[in-house]
């Protein structure tokens, strides 16, 4: 197993040095590929986002990902592997895999079964191929699109263009030229890129964004990289360049040692409110290895703070770059290692405690105010509740001493579809009450009405052991849950399995949403029982915050693993620990 893992690390690197390895003709089988260096596949896709994934590839990746899951599960302790934490990276993916309804989608059958040529054809052969083609699309457009999909060699594409030109008195349409350019850029044929650039410049007085993007990407590796900056200026005249455009230009500038241009472009990118690509940031770190400049290293630390403030996480290879850069800083003797964090918030690598998940008092007050004004009120109190009810609720909360646990009654009661709702609720409440916790149950009025699934006697027992607040049947109870918990103070937790994404979405800006998410991670208890009778167990609450952080002489940086699919409301589980040798 160890061999296997080291293998994974080394393959992506091998890949980067030798991009031509990936070119496999459409007729070849992927089996060989899969066996030999399957771990490289994913990386290749990241590098060349232009390439669409062939079906065989995705399947292979799924297999790998699954295999990796299994291996990991066997290694770690049983409990946590069965229920990955609600917000841990990959948990949502796993939940969906447990769902029996999900199945692989069958691929639509291929309509046009024309074999892509692997060698340049002459005009008769192209003519014949065109006759064979039965589709509604334009043959030339269709075939070159297929060539891009399967990365045909550019000679084949060139012969197609020559054929088109011969038929058309030397004219090749813009569309074909751009697609040809796409192939040239993918194969890094710089001289071809120059040629196409000359043609485009001669023929058209301005270019549109996709051609410029391709040209920028093609030019940055050459000596004419400054022309890429001109192209960027041209794009800016009409639309905001994409983060890829900026990323490419920055990489071009770094490749040619023009650090100032790179930082200026980076600042411009941030000013446009674009979120830079991880590759761009990685490029800065990779470049930083070779220069000893305080100014430069300060800016790199600023990038890390940017990651912290925007709750972004580097990818695996980026994490490696960060580690390498820190270790290359002369005189400071940094040492980095990839670790995980223990449940109590201690780093396994250095033993330091990670930042607490709890909000600062100011943040807490701010969030409380925002929840009341944006989630509950939201400009129209009648939307989620009524003013009378809100008043009643606020009075109720004021009168009660702070709670320890707030329960979303309906969510908890409906946990087991086969058990009676009121009984499940009673079960949970009495177990919590036994621990001498002050419990608040939030629900709706219909719960108190005697019915088959809501027994009155059981509800009365619930009301004896806990304080209850019942909202109107057409009011929403989740906002009350949030407010009651926030009002009770930092120690108070709430119980629901709901991910509360719709309420998070009500918040006005990304910063408040991140605050909410942080608070939610620290205060939400999710019940992970599978059977109604058993003693309830909760998902453990992480005591630490998953965010890039520093103490001056140490850095802790969470990162995304390449083969784990993380959803937006999940956080990574792997960390890079950096500290100075003393």
């Amino acid at each position: 197993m160890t061999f296997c893992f080291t293998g994974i690390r080394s393959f992506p690197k091998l890949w980067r040095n030798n991009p031509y390895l990936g070119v496999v003709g459409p007729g070849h089988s992927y089996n060989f590929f899969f066996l030999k260096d399957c771990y490289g596949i994913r990386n290749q896709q990241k590098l060349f986002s232009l390439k669409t994934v062939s079906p065989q590839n995705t399947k292979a990746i799924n297999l790998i990902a699954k295999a990796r899951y299994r291996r990991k599960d066997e290694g770690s302790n049983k409990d946590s592997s069965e229920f990955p934490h609600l917000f841990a990276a990959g948990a949502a993916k796993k939940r969906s895999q447990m769902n029996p309804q999900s199945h692989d989608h069958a691929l639509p059958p291929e309509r046009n079964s024309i074999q892509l040529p692997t060698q340049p054809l002459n005009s008769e052969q192209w003519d014949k191929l065109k006759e064979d083609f039965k589709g509604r699309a334009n043959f030339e457009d269709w075939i070159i699109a297929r060539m891009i999909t399967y990365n045909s060699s550019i000679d084949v594409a060139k012969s197609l263009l020559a054929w088109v030109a011969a038929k058309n008195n030397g004219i090749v349409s813009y569309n074909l030229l751009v697609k040809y350019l796409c192939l040239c850029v993918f194969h890094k044929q710089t001289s071809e890129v120059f040629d196409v650039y000359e043609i485009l410049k001669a023929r058209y007085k301005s270019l549109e964004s996709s051609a410029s993007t391709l040209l920028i990407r093609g030019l940055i590796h050459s000596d004419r990289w400054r022309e890429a900056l001109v192209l960027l200026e041209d794009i800016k005249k009409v639309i905001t360049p994409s983060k890829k455009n900026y990323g490419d230009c920055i990489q071009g500038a770094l490749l040619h040692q023009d650090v100032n241009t790179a930082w200026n472009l980076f600042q411009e990118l941030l000013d446009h409110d674009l979120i830079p690509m991880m590759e761009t940031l990685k490029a800065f770190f990779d470049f930083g290895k070779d220069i000893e400049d305080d100014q430069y290293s300060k800016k790199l630390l600023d990038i890390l703070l940017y990651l912290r403030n925007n709750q972004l996480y580097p990818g695996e290879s980026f994490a490696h770059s960060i580690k390498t850069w820190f270790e290359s800083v002369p005189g400071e003797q940094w040492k980095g290692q990839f670790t995980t964090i223990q449940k109590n918030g201690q780093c396994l690598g250095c033993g330091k405690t990670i930042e607490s998940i709890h909000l600062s008092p100011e943040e807490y007050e701010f969030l409380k105010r925002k929840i009341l004004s944006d989630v509950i009120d939201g400009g129209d109190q009648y939307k989620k509740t009524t003013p009378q009810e809100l008043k009643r609720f606020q009075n109720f909360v004021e009168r009660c001493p702070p709670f320890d646990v707030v329960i979303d009654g309906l969510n908890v009661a409906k946990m087991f579809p086969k058990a009676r709702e009121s009984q499940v609720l009673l079960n949970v409440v009495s177990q919590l009450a036994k621990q001498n916790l002050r419990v608040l149950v939030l629900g709706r009025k219909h719960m108190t009405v005697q019915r088959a699934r809501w027994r009155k006697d059981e509800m009365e027992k619930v009301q004896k052991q806990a304080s209850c607040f019942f909202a109107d049947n057409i009011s929403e109870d989740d906002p009350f849950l949030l407010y009651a918990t926030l009002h009770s103070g930092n120690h108070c937790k709430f119980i629901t399995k709901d991910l509360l994404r719709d309420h998070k979405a009500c918040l006005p800006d990304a910063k408040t949403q991140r605050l909410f998410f942080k608070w939610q991670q620290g205060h939400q208890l999710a019940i992970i029982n599978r059977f109604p009778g058993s003693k309830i167990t909760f998902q453990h609450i992480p005591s630490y915050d998953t965010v890039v952080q520093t103490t001056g002489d140490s850095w802790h940086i969470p990162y995304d693993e390449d083969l784990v699919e993380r959803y937006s409301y999940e956080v990574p589980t792997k960390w890079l620990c950096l500290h100075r040798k003393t």
Partner: protein
Amino acid sequence: MPVFLKMSIGITFIRPFARVLVPFTLNKKRRVLYSTILNRYMSSKIPAESYPKKENTSPEQLELDGWKITMKSSVQQGVSTVSSAKDEDPVAATRELIEMWRLLGREVPEHISEEELKTIMECDSKSSKKKYLKYLYLREKMKKAKQIKKEMKAAAREKAIQDQLLETTNQDKQQDFLFLRLWDRNMDIAMGWKGAQAMQFGQPLVFDMAYDDYMKPKELQYTVSQLLESEGWNRRDVDPFHIHFCNLKPDSPFRRELIKRYGEKWNKLLLTATEKSHVDLFPKDSIIYLTADSPNVMSTFKHDKIYIVGSFVDKNMQPGASLAKAKRLNLATECFPLDKYLQWDTGTKNLTIDQVTRILLCLKNTGSWEEALKFVPKRKHTGYLEVSQHPQELVNRIKKTINSFPKGSLNKYTRKK
């Protein structure tokens, strides 16, 4: 300028040939014509020999780089005029960008007006620009298709008239008729009479126009279209509602749009448009606010109630806006029993205003839900459910009896089945 001169010389030089070669391109844009002819001229000049030659010498290989020479050389003269006027305003740049996108096969319009261009420049994000361009593209396409259809129809009509002329000359007979052909006008007058009666004795149907703050201009336009449609359906009905447009503020975009669409007819419409609220016009306890968010399901159509329909197209995901309105005024709410009668498939339960009007009209006349819910779009459901034959009580009783069977006997029963 000098290049233009040169070009024109070139054109006069090959004009006779061009006439023969490209008789159809002549109608197209002038610039396109110039370049094609020029290219023809150039290509005949430079690589004309190379193509056949290469193919003769090596039959299995096409000359790979030959096209580049043509592409580069053919236009080096053609475009130098343009590059001189390069640093222009962003408006022209945008226009060019759109033109290039069109060449790339993106969904952008061929022709674009100054005003539309300005709208594009004002769009604050790239995706909104693309969306607007796609809208223009589709509109242009539709317009073109309509134009072609119109021309074809005109041609057909022309032909029909000619045929008829031939026929009438053949047989010129006198025919006896009872009525003059004035059907449309008669129908309008009859509907006017019915409408006037509805104004006096009809059941009120209120459209609540207090949603203009919730909607963007486009949604507002959709709403007005739907209102026009509803009014049309109501007018044609046997027993029309007395329509009220309530909360219609004198200066609101709603009113402006309605007047724009109705034109002079607005003042002659047989309906009540008022800036008062529906709660001022009618007793509160007889009002029922129709909203899909309501927890109460409508069981029957009541002829003594006043139904209110919110004139609100919600593309912006604001659930519960109309329910909040009803809650604020403390009104009764109801929703259509869609789930009870239909096997719902996809789409929201929010129906368009004209569909709601037609359902209400149908209920008023027949009282049958099956009949009325025909107006729910077919794509939203897979069919009618068998209900109402077995009332809920009966179902419960059956359930109880099944539960009371001893376990073994039930198994036997199922096995037999």
